């Protein structure tokens, strides 16, 4: 109950507690997007020629593409010329030790509850801190290096691991994959890079903490994780942003690659600013996440807890190419007030005996709209493919909506696909029943939500499970009378 108390206290005390800004001296790219912007970013990052060419190719592709309109979300047209595509802290060039990190930035991460200090970090979690367009610092990298693990910012990887980056960047999400992926490919500024060598089990959780700070700025990070044969890594990303009245764009790309017998577990706790109670402001979160199980017996598992953003548009997917490979998607998506989420997954079965599992838990409250969109493709080559999907919707109150859009494409008759969907509602009778047993509305909702999301929460690393539970209670504050 003590834990519960804390949650309620926080619920009462806070709306969006991550909504402060950091005062640091920053430098920006000129407003708007042109070939010059792309060149500017590339030059700022001291990138090699091949990288600039890669970006320009993406930029040219993007110019010819159109914004997708098929999602079940509604928002005013985005003016891509009013966004700043690069913001970074003005600072001395090289950060060699933690002491070199700007105290204001340290302060920010302290306030967010993730101090940049190796000894104080959650036991066994290495963190890459990304603010706006720059990676601030990556912790624990020396001890990881001893095992041959590379964990650094993508900018650094471009400079120092060109062969790996050239080989894998865009191999899962090509530049012209979709409108926002093309945009990201042209202007991405930072993100994390992970390489786990053959046979290595990464001894700690790897984590990136994304923070949008600057005004009118888009965040376009790029993450690339490669698990070589027989390796294993668990990776977690967290995201927050200050409260601002305008909408801010976040268009990230994440690519995962697993070789034979390798496994990547990718978890997200997304808490971008969702806008205020009237639906003003908030982050547009348009993200492309995709992993490929390249090798046999490999596994990719996506777990996401999505509570923030005004609009979420995101479908972490698995391409199951290697025989016997496994793809998993566990998702909790919460929408409250005027938030809109259109999220789900794609499981693409190509190899034999490939398996996928989808567990999606949508929670809608207030006036929000929550859509699950999931696709299962079983290709001709995928003998004995198996998919099970469980899509549950929970409604709190009666002004919100939940929608489910499952798509099936089965081209091999030996496959087996199971789909189950439920809708439940936290209505007055249910709350009264809980009240009658001594629980307040907040306690009742928190209990029901935690029960409802159990299957997803238990996929998260322990420390983040508690975090995720708290986050949910906070997001649903005031959703019942």
């Amino acid at each position, binding site marked *: *109950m003590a834990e519960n108390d804390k949650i309620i206290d926080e619920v009462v005390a806070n709306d969006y507690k991550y909504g402060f800004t950091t005062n640091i001296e920053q430098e920006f790219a000129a407003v708007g997007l042109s070939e010059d912007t792309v060149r500017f970013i590339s030059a700022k990052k001291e990138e090699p020629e091949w990288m600039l060419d890669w970006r320009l190719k993406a930029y040219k592709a993007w110019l010819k593409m159109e914004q997708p309109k098929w999602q079940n979300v509604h928002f005013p047209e985005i003016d891509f010329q009013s966004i700043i595509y690069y913001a970074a802290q003005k600072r001395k060039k090289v950060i060699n030790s933690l002491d070199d990190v700007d105290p204001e930035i340290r302060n920010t991460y302290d306030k967010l509850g993730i101090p940049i200090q190796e000894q104080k970090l959650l036991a066994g979690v290495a963190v890459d801190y990304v603010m706006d367009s720059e990676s601030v610092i990556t912790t624990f990298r020396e001890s990881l290096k001893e095992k041959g693990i590379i964990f650094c910012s993508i900018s650094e990887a471009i400079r120092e691991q060109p062969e790996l980056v050239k080989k894998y960047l865009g191999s899962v999400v090509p530049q012209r994959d979709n409108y926002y992926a093309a945009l990201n490919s042209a202007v991405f500024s930072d993100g994390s890079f992970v390489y786990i060598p053959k046979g290595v089990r990464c001894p700690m959780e790897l984590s990136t903490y994304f923070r949008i700070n600057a005004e009118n700025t888009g965040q376009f990070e790029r993450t690339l994780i490669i698990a070589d044969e027989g390796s294993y890594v668990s990776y977690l990303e967290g995201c927050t942003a200050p409260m601002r009245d305008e909408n801010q764009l976040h268009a990230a790309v994440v690519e995962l690659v697993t070789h034979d017998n390798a496994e990547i577990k990718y978890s997200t706790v997304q808490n971008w600013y969702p806008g205020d109670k009237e639906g003003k402001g908030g982050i547009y979160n348009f993200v492309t996440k995709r992993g490929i199980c390249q090798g046999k017996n490999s596994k990719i598992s996506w777990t996401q807890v999505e509570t923030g953003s005004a609009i979420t548009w995101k479908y972490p997917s698995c391409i199951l190419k290697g025989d016997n490979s496994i793809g998993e998607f566990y998702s909790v998506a919460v929408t409250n007030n005027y938030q809109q989420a259109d999220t789900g997954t794609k499981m693409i079965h190509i190899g034999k005996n490939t398996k996928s599992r989808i567990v999606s838990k949508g929670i809608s409250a207030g006036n929000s709209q929550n859509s699950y969109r999931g696709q299962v493709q079983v290709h001709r080559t995928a003998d004995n493919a198996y998919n099970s999907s469980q899509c549950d919707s929970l409604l709190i109150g009666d002004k919100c909506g939940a929608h489910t859009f499952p798509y099936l494409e089965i081209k091999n008759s030996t496959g087996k696909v199971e789909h189950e969907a439920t809708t*439940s509602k936290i209505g007055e009778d249910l709350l*009264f029943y809980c009240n*009658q047993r*001594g*629980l307040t509305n907040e*306690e009742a909702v928190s209990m*029901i939500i935690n029960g409802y999301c159990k299957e997803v929460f238990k996929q998260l690393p322990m420390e983040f499970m508690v975090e995720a539970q708290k986050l949910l209670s906070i997001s649903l504050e005031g959703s019942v009378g």
Partner: protein
Amino acid sequence: MLSIRNLNVGIAEKQILKDFNLEIKPGEIHAIMGPNGTGKSTLASTLAGKEDYEVLSGEVSFNGKNLLEMSADERAREGVFLAFQYPVEIPGVSTTNFMKAAVNAKRKHQGLEPMDAKDFLKLMREKMTLVEMNKEFTSRSVNEGFSGGEKKRNEIFQMAMLEPSLCLLDETDSGLDIDALRIVANGVNKLRDYKRSFLVITHYQRLLNYIVPDYVHVMYGGKIVKSGGKELALKLEEQGYDWIKEEVGELAN
């Protein structure tokens, strides 16, 4: 323990309870009988604090406190328990977790620490035995897929867990088979003590063979129109409500 004075309650513009009066002393069992739609569940829900019911006037004091000023969850923590006529299903929450939350909410209210896991499980086992409930039910979501009778038994189990001082039983006997009726009644009897009071709403005298009441009241038109001992229930069983309605009619004339 419970004192209801001139209680008037309405719902959706319609007055249901009309100048309702009742006194219950510690340790007493009161049975309320009466035709459908006379306001028995309304009484129980109002006492439990359901917001749809609008208290127009009247007073209710519970252990010396003004019950009507408390929220539903506060009343529960103060020791009012309602065994629902139609128990609700709670998706995704096991009976064990539900009871853990409820027991600890009450303990917190009493200034006690949360119960430790071992003691809690011991308490669960003890109370499950009381209502002869199968262990399997406690790991399933509360009431989800339970049969009508199983839901009712689960209500009594929860009552036993929470050890309330006022137990309101709204037609707990309906939907129970003969064995279950005996089990539920036994459960209630074991919970009976000199402090704990019961208000038992029922349509059938049969229940009162097992749970022997101190008083039987007949409710009609939103108020108690006749009170007596347990023999009143027998008379109702034999003769129905017509003679009561006649008497009330005469009184009204």
